[in-house]
Structures are given as C-alpha cells and as structure tokens.
C-alpha cells in the first residue's frame, strides 16, 4: 500500500480565481450591455468602447470564469479519480499563476485595442505563446503524468472528457493562431479571407465544444454523482455520450458560415453533423437527470442539486437550440441577430454558470473544512440566478427574432419594409434595457456567492487537516482478464480470430492506458478536422480569383488595422449573403475572391450596426469624418459610440513599411516600388483624402491623423469587384495604389 495526500490548496486557489474573475466578467458584461442603450457611457474614452470591451467580456467569461472553474474541477476530481496527488505541485502552481497572468495580459491588452479580432481568439501572439506553454507545458504535462502515476486502474469517464479537452484545445489554439508578427502587439494570420474564416469557426465552434462543454461534462459526471451520493444513471450511456460527442462536435463548425463564401458541401456537412449532435447531447443530459432518480426529494432541499438540475436543463435546451440554429433555413433568419446572443447566454449563464456555482457550493465545506456559511443565501442565489437567466434570454430571443424579421421584411412591391437599419436598432431598446436589469440580477447572485465564500473561508480551521490516504500501486505486470475464446465452429481460423477481435478486449486495454486512449481521441479529432480543412484549402474553385481585386494600398492597410484594433467587427459584418433582403439593403452579395488579401477576415458574426461589405464609395470622406466623430449627428438614433480621438491622434507612418512587407510576405503582390516607398505612398493618399475633406467643407490639417487611414480603408471596402481589371503594368509601377486614389477623389 502507498500513502498519499491530495493537494487541496490548488483547488482553493482556482475556486477563488473563478469567483473573482466571474464577478469581473459579469460586471463588464453589464457595462457593455448598458452601452447599447446609453452609448454615451463610454465618456469619449477609447478603452471603454463596445468594440474593445466586448472581447474583454467574452474572454473573461470563457477563459477566466469558466476556465478557472474547470481547472478547479479537474484538479479536485482528477486526484480522487486517480487515487493520487497531482504529479507536480510546482507545475500546478505554474499553471495557476501562469493562467492568471494570461488573464491580466488580456485585461490590459484588449481595452488598449491590441487584438487579432478573431472571436474568442483575440489575444495577440505573445499571449498566445504564453497560453500554449501554460496549457500544454504546465497543465497538460501535470495532468497526463498524474494519469500515468495513478492508483486506480480504470480511467473514469470524467477523465476521458478532460483528456479530450486538453488535447483538442491545444490543437485548436495552435492552428488558429498561426500568424506572422509585425511587431510585439500586431500580427497577420497566415490564412486569408475564406480560409481564415473557416479556420476561425473551426476553432470558434470547437472552443465552445471543448472548453465550455466537454470539461463541464467531466465536471457533471464527477460532481453530480458525488452530490447525489449515487453512481451515474448509466455508465454505458456515458461512454456512448463521450465518443459520439467527440466524434461529432469537430465537424459542426461550418454552420457558422451558412450562405457565405464557403463550399456548399462543407456547409451542409456542418449542418448535418450539428443536427446529429442533438442525440449525444441529450443522452448526456438525460443521463445526468436520471442519476437523480429516486432522489428528487433531495433536489428540493439541496441548493447544490438545484444548481445542477437547472444547469443540466439549460444544457439540454441550448444543445437542442444549437442544432436548430444550424439548419440553413433557420440560420438565414437567426444569423447576425441577437438570437445567437440569447442562445450563447442560455448556455453560458445556465449551463456553465450554474454547474460552476453548484460545484463551488459543494466544494466550499470540503476545501475549507467547515460548514457552509449560509444555505439560505445559496438558495437566494439560485432563485436570483434563475430569474436573471430567464429575464435575459426571453427578451433577447424576442429581440433577435424581431431583428431578423425586420431585416427580412419586404413590401408587396418588393421593397424593404424597414429600409433604415437604425429602425430595427431602435425597436430593440426596451429588450436591451431588460437585459441590463437581468445582468444586474445575475451579478447580485454572484455577490451572494461571494459573501458565502468569504464567510465560509473566515470560519475555516486554523490549520487545514491533511488526511493521508492509502491505495496499492498499480502493478506493472497487470494482465487483462482473458478474452473468451471464439465459440464459432466449422469456420476458418480467420473467422475465429475476427470473432475474438470483435469482442474488443483491446478497447478495455485502452481504457486503462491513457496514452493510447489519448492517441485515439486525437485521431477522432484530427480525422474530422482534416476531412474539412484539407479540401477547403486545396480546391482552387473555392476561391476563384477576381482580377480586379488588388492588395490594399499602404494607407488602407494601416487603416484596416485601425478598424481591426477598434473591434468594429463586434457590431458590423462584412459579408452580404445571397438573400434578396440583404442584397437590397447592402448591395451585391459577397464573393469569396474579394477577401484574398483580408488578414484577418472581418466577416463578423452580428449586426448591431449595418453590414459594411459595400461601404466603399457610398458616402463622402466628410460624412465618414463626422460620423466617426459623432454618429448620432448623422444617423438619428444610432447607438454607435464616438471615435473622436481618431481625429486628434497622429498616424504612425513609420510602422507602415513593416505592415506592407508582412502582407507581401504572405502573398500580396506588392511591387518593389510599393515596398520601398510605402511611407511616401501613404502620405500621398492621406494628403489627397485630407484635401477632399477640405473641399467638402470639412476641417483642414487631417493628413497625418489616424482617421484619414480609417476613411481610406472604409472607402475601399467592397469596391474592387466593380473596377476594371488592371492592365499589365511595367514591373516597378505601383499598380494598386493609383486607381483607388483617383476613384476616391471623384
């Protein structure tokens, strides 16, 4: 027998971090929700705008709140399921502090506008490298070595979900963040346009799957039986649940890109696999709920079980809704609307939030070795949280469907029923106000939890007890029980061997061999990914070249980087779908070939403001200047914040050559002249735009301001499609820059 002690300290640390960052995430969420009804709430400060803070909210909710929660769950349960202490306390601490450092870096860099602009992968490359080191080098190594050194032969199903989480998140993170750095705080992805969009939503969807679903299912399979004090309803169902989920989830990403420039077969495949996902998801939910069979009376008394039951119910609800939203005809209405936001929040607040709260309430007496301070406060938290979620999602569902129907609406004569986009925005204001109230209630629930945690912690013993446990080490020469010989008679020997093989004794071996098991999880994930990714990158016909589409001029390139930095994609899409109401409202539908120089792609995923894919040339330079300074002065009822500082801040022309060189390195066909004279070309275009603004009765002296670069970009967006293909020019002539300038000057 070997003696060992569990490391409770690391669980206490992660639980504390979960609570602290959770409150931050809720608070920032309320603030950005408030900005949608009171746009002046930014106080004219750049680091408080919706475009910069919305990523802070999502990153805080996903990676800080949910992230620390899953680490708390994993560190607590893995030790017990393996009957072993974590392999290295040093790695545990490096993981904890490394992860908190990442969160702090995110909290500083995102409001400063340092972003890759890919949803849930906004952090720039130095932080991405840190994530890879902490996730794989500290967390992954520590986890897998604990599995190797365990004293329980069978790997319980919760550990399978953790394995899938660690392996897949590492893959997704690495491949979606392959970039060429332009400096310490700026990079361009190696993918462009359609491919970039495809990689991003392969990542984005599976981040939801393998960061917000599989680890929480592992949590559920461990903590629900513990809280109910009974084994899971069907262990067999849990195995089917695991393999089906891991195999299916990875295919579903393309449903985020219906009706875009993605190949039809990939889009359909994403839809079919998404619909099939419903089965394992509900299998998991039912397995969880039926674990409470015969113990439902406990649910009425125990706040922990209440949180788990409602959390599981929201899991079932959002995993029914997800497949439904992936159906193309539903998606045509729901995409870009607040319906998606409601869907995400039913999962995040209901499933992730409530499973986390349930786990924390269950853990508190155990990790602090004392009674929970107040059961009543926990009950209040439960009811406040439940009401908050319903108050959040119901109006936002309503808002989303209202948006979709208003955008779609055509009159009998075929004209748009609501031609002014801002009409739809204004219609949503009452729903947005209710959401703010709901957010405050959810935060209030978090405050009650905080009180309970602090007061429970205050009544902890002076010295924590650290019990010693005993378990025999796993013998190295363990032999599996023999697989019964084939009972087939009168058949070839090969058939007998096949019969024995089909009894799958080999799978039983895998279940106790973590590395083999991990290998097959990787196979399932990689196979599915390659099936989709390789064709998308190989087929030339996917992205037909458009001769008139040329690289951005140096000034437009830096202007585009400002657009990215300000997080404009959080409110504006750049993807017009081939749907009548969209083409009528925004212009000709988007073609794949238009995005070949777009690094990163800026298709966006919601329309708080109108699509900008055909914005170029629609308005004068002066209109853009005034609109960026005070949007509501030109569009009455607009909820866009002011970007007045762009008019005051100098544009750093010195950074332009690096940007152009990086774009050229990634394949943009700049001439030598453009590469060598990037600054001069940018100055020339800036002077021309500034001159045009003066001609249009605007202010003078803007030729070296950031706003000019942004206007240059906005005036270029979506215009190349309608230009004549450039005539083959002498090698050293800057062919891309000239036509654009002359067109804008008109």
């Amino acid at each position, binding site marked *: 027998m070997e003696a060992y002690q569990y490391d409770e300290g690391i669980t206490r640390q992660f639980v504390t971090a979960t609570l602290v960052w959770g409150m931050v995430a809720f608070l920032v969420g309320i603030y950005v929700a408030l900005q949608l009804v009171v746009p002046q709430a930014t106080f004219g400060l750049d680091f408080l705008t919706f475009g910069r803070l919305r990523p802070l909210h999502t990153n805080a909710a996903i990676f800080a709140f949910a992230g620390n929660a899953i680490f708390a769950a994993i560190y607590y349960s893995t030790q017990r399921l393996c*009957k072993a202490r974590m392999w290295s306390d040093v790695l545990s601490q490096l993981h904890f502090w490394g992860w908190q450092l990442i969160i702090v870096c995110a909290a500083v860099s995102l409001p400063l506008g340092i972003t890759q602009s890919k949803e849930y992968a906004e952090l720039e490359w130095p932080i991405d490298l840190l994530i890879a080191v902490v996730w794989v080098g500290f967390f992954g190594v520590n986890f897998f070595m604990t599995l190797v050194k365990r004293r329980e032969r069978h790997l*319980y199903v919760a550990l399978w979900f953790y394995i899938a989480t660690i392996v897949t998140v590492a893959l997704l993170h690495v491949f979606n963040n392959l970039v060429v750095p332009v400096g310490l705080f700026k990079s361009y992805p190696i993918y462009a346009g359609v491919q970039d969009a495809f990689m991003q939503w392969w990542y984005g969807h599976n981040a939801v799957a393998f960061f917000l679903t599989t680890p929480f299912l592992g949590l559920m*399979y461990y903590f629900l039986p513990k809280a109910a004090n*009974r*084994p899971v309803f069907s*262990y*067999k169902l849990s195995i089917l649940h695991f393999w089906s989920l891991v*195999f299916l989830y990875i295919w579903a990403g393309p449903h985020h890109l219906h009706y875009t420039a993605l190949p039809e077969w990939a889009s359909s495949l994403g839809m079919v696999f998404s619909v099939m996902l419903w089965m394992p998801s509900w299998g998991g939910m039912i397995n969880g709920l039926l674990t409470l069979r015969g113990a439902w009376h406990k649910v009425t008394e125990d706040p922990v079980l209440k949180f788990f039951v409602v959390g599981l119910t929201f899991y079932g609800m959002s995993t029914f809704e997800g497949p439904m939203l992936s159906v193309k005809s539903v998606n045509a209405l729901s995409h870009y609307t607040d319906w998606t936001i409601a869907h995400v929040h039913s999962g995040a607040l209901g499933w992730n939030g409530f499973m986390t709260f349930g786990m924390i309430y269950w853990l508190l007496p155990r990790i602090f070795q004392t009674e929970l301070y107040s059961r009543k406060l926990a009950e209040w938290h439960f009811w406040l949280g439940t009401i908050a979620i319903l108050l959040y999602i119901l109006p936002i569902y309503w808002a989303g469907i209202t948006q979709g129907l208003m955008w779609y609406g055509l009159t009998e004569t075929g004209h748009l029923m609501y031609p002014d986009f801002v009409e739809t925005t204004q219609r949503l204001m009452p729903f947005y106000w209710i959401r703010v109230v709901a957010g405050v209630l959810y935060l209030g629930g978090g405050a009650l939890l905080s009180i309970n945690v602090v007061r429970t912690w205050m009544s902890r013993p002076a010295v924590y007890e650290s019990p010693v446990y*005993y378990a025999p080490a796993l013998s190295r020469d363990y032999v599996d029980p023999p697989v019964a010989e084939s009972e087939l008679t009168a058949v070839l020997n090969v058939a007998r061997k096949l019969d024995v093989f089909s009894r799958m004794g080999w799978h039983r071996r895998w279940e106790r061999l973590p590395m083999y098991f991990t290998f097959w999880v990787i196979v*399932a994930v990689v196979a599915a990914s390659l099936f989709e990714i390789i064709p998308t990158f190989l087929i030339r016909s996917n992205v037909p070249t458009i001769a008139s589409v040329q690289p951005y001029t140096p000034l437009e390139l830096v202007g585009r980087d400002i657009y990215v930095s300000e997080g404009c994609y959080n409110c504006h899409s750049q993807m017009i779908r081939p749907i009548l109401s969209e083409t009528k409202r925004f212009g000709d539908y988007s073609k794949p070939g238009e995005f070949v120089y777009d690094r990163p792609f800026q298709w966006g995923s919601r329309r708080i403001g109108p699509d900008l894919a055909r914005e170029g040339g629609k308005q004068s330079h002066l209109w853009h200047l005034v609109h960026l300074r005070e949007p509501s002065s030109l569009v009455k009822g607009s909820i866009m914040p002011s970007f007045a500082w762009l008019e005051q801040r100098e544009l750093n022309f010195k950074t332009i050559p690096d940007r152009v060189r990086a774009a050229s390195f990634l394949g943009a066909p700049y001439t030598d002249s453009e590469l060598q004279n990037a600054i001069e070309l940018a100055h020339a275009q800036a002077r021309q735009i500034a001159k045009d603004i003066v001609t249009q009765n605007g202010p003078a002296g803007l030729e070296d301001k950031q706003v000019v670069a942004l206007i240059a970009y906005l005036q270029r967006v979506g215009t190349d499609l309608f230009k004549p293909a450039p005539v083959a020019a002498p090698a050293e002539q800057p062919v891309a820059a000239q036509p654009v300038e002359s067109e804008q000057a008109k």
Partner: protein
Amino acid sequence: MIRDILREVDYSTFATLALLLFVLAFVAAGIKTLWLTSREESCEQANIPLSDGKRSDQ
C-alpha cells in the same frame, strides 16, 4: 500531375464519407458499450467517484 488530380477530385463525396465514418465509429462504440461490457464491470466503474480512497484514520 498531383495538382491535376486535386483539381479533379469531387470533394463533395467527403461529406458522404464523413457520415459513413461516423456511422462505423458509432456502431463500433455501441457494440462495445452495450454488448461487450458486463453489468458488474460497468457498475464497478460507475462507482469510482463515490469513494475518495481509504483514509488512514478510518
């Protein structure tokens, strides 16, 4: 030549192949789980989280 082959491949069959692959994997997992795992074994495994291990003071 490789480029020509890649250009000529009908990638839409990938969708069918993907479904087939999933069905095979699902059937294999189903057979293993439902028929080839004994009830006793399954119950034993399901009970793993209920015990934290044997304490020295128990």
